[in-house]
């Protein structure tokens, strides 16, 4: 655990830890520093905002219940300024009605009492996701499907469908690589970073269930494509089913502005290369 140089030449990730319990603050900060993170602490929301003025960390870990400014308000204010990843650490369990609100603004949610290795795994997962660029608003994948991953919802044939936290994490990884194949191992890491002995079947079954939720016709998927033995690919589709070979060209054309069209074209190439390799 005490591997100070685990981040190599890259600067150690900076974490701002906000909790009103001084014991926990000291302890968790020590644990995280021992794991090579650069940690700053704050006792409440206002102090956290003051610290943020001195520079933005890579990750915010925030307690839900704090005096003066609670975690939810703080998280919303921070997100309004920048897309800083947030992990909520809270004594409120996931069945609480407030947990849903928190998950809309936070990347992950860990209940107290936390298990440090699990928290550590989730921090790692959120940081790995940093490079992924997924639009914060709606991601339209075709006439029948649009995703709003930050709100964990999909719109399938104009019907809103709720996604589970794991489903939205997998879709996030796939959407960040739109058109390209994402390996099952990567997906397993994104969805089950905190699970011991995670098995590829978790990904398979979750994908199958996801297809039931978001594909207009789950037996003939057009958006969530299996690349057998390799992984999965999320693709845009501007026609419902009959596009066939013209689909790839249609994607690029339908994307609108030049930048997006370029992306789609590149994604298509990468996807094809991935297929050839398989």
């Amino acid at each position, binding site marked *: *655990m005490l591997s100070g140089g685990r981040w190599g030449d890259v600067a150690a990730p900076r974490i701002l830890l906000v909790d009103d*319990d001084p*014991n*926990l603050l000291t*302890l*968790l900060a*020590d*644990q995280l520093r021992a794991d090579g993170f650069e940690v700053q602490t704050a006792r409440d929301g206002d102090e956290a905002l003051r610290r943020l003025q001195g520079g933005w960390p890579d990750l915010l870990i925030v307690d*839900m*219940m704090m005096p003066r400014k609670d975690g939810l308000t703080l998280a919303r204010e921070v997100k309004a300024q920048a897309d800083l990843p947030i992990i909520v650490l809270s*004594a*409120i*369990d*996931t*069945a*609480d*009605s*407030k947990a*849903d609100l928190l998950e809309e603004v936070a990347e992950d949610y860990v*209940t*107290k*009492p*936390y298990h*440090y290795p699990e928290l550590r795994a989730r921090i790692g997962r959120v940081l790995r996701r940093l490079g992924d660029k997924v639009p914060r608003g709606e991601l339209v994948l075709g006439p029948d499907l649009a995703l709003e991953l930050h709100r964990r919802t999909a719109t399938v044939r104009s019907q809103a469908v709720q996604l*589970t*936290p*794991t489903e939205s994490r997998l879709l996030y990884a796939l959407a960040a690589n739109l058109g390209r194949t994402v390996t099952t191992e990567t997906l397993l890491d994104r969805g089950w970073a905190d*699970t*011991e*002995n995670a*098995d*590829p*079947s*978790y990904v*398979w*079954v*979750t*994908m*199958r*269930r996801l*297809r039931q939720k978001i594909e207009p016709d789950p037996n003939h998927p057009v958006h969530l494509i*299996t690349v*057998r*033995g390799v992984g999965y690919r999320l693709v845009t589709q501007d026609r419902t089913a009959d596009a066939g070979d013209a689909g790839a060209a249609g994607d690029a054309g339908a994307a609108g502005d030049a930048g997006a069209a370029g992306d789609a074209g590149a994604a298509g190439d990468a996807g094809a290369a991935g297929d050839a390799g398989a």
Partner: protein
Amino acid sequence: MTVDPRLDTEVEQPRIGSGYSFRARLTAGLIVGATVPLLGFGALLVGVESARAGRLDAALTGLVLFALAVSVIVAVLFAWILAGSLMAPLRLVSRAVERVSRGDLSVRVEVAGEDELARLAESHNRLAADLQRRNVELGRILVAIGETSPRDGLDRLVAHATTSARSAFDMIDASLHLGDPGDIPVEESVPGESRPVRAILARPDERVGVLTGHLPATRSWDSADQDLLELFASEIAVAIRNAELFERVGAQSRRLVELDAAKDDFLRGISHNLQTPLTSIRAYADQLAASHPDRRLTIIAEQSDRLSRMVRQLLTVSRLESGALHPRLEVVALGTRVRRAWEALGAEDVALDLRDEAAGWLAVADPDQLDQVLWALLDNAVKYGGGGPVVVTIGRDDETELVTLTIADAGSGVPEAARDLLFGRFERSDESGHPDGTGLGLYVSRALCRAMGGELVLESAGRGSMDGRPGGAAFTVRLPGEAPDEG
């Protein structure tokens, strides 16, 4: 309901009545009817007298017979015509009455003259017009009552009732006073001025208020009209009561929502205040144990976890009651979950025998809630297992596509008397002599399993081992399952 009754009348032809009164015609008819036969009788007498005098010749006989015949014919003819002229208007009136009684209130008989039949026709017309007007009023009242909704609130209801009363009864003005009807004095009716009307808003148990208004001086107002107004008033009284009840229920449900939110806040606070120190205890014990391995530190960590779980369980019970469980279904491997839950229990002197016969099948469950179920069941198995091994078997049912998890202990089983109450609140087997625990474990576990689309049952009450089980109590969790295929 805006139809003017005067525009919608149908006139029955021909006109009724004549220049002569019915009495004059009947009198003339009776006189003629009585005198003409008398003339005939006179002629007959003349004939008989002449015959007795022997002066009867053929010519005279013929004349007498002729006069007789003519008088009879004239009498019959006259009577026939008179009867016809008297009956025709009566028949017209009776036909009109029949149509009215069948519901066709638009029928009118056109009146000419001043005789008794004309007056009869006029009163029929008036009857029909009154019926039609009251029908229209009743229709407007019903529509007005139908439009009232308890959601409108008292003020809108009062406004609606006054405007409806005005338009339904063609009033000049109308107002509704809520409270004691005695507060509003009764107005005297002055001939030639607008006529005051009034109806009390009464319910079987109380008088809610009074509806007052004024009618044009020319408007007739009979007891039937008053009845109609009172009917309207009593319906408005009922509507007002409904609105009051609705408001009260609304206020109560708002209060309940507030209380519910307050309870949620309270539980959140409790949870936070208990879990925060437990988190520190747990984390410090872990940290210390990492540098100074000590069995006592492990016990501190385990016991603080145990306390945390009990707090969670109490929160879950409170949510069960308010129906706010919200399971988030994810794909989980039961074997891994069982092993983790077992480690968290820290029952190091009891052996766990985990048999996975599900060939990689995965369950669909809320991981947090599944953990609560597993902790409760494994904890029970340790508590009541008498130190023997706990056998956990994971299997699947191909037909129902359910994954099953059976937890069996080596204890003395569940006593007959306790089986029915096993899944109730605050129940535990008294014979076991273990006073610890909340007694909520099985109650909460079953509710959680059901909320996840599964079930929790007592598989075997124990006494005698079978299928390689240790022979104590065995509980089975069933959950929706998924095959581990790539797809």
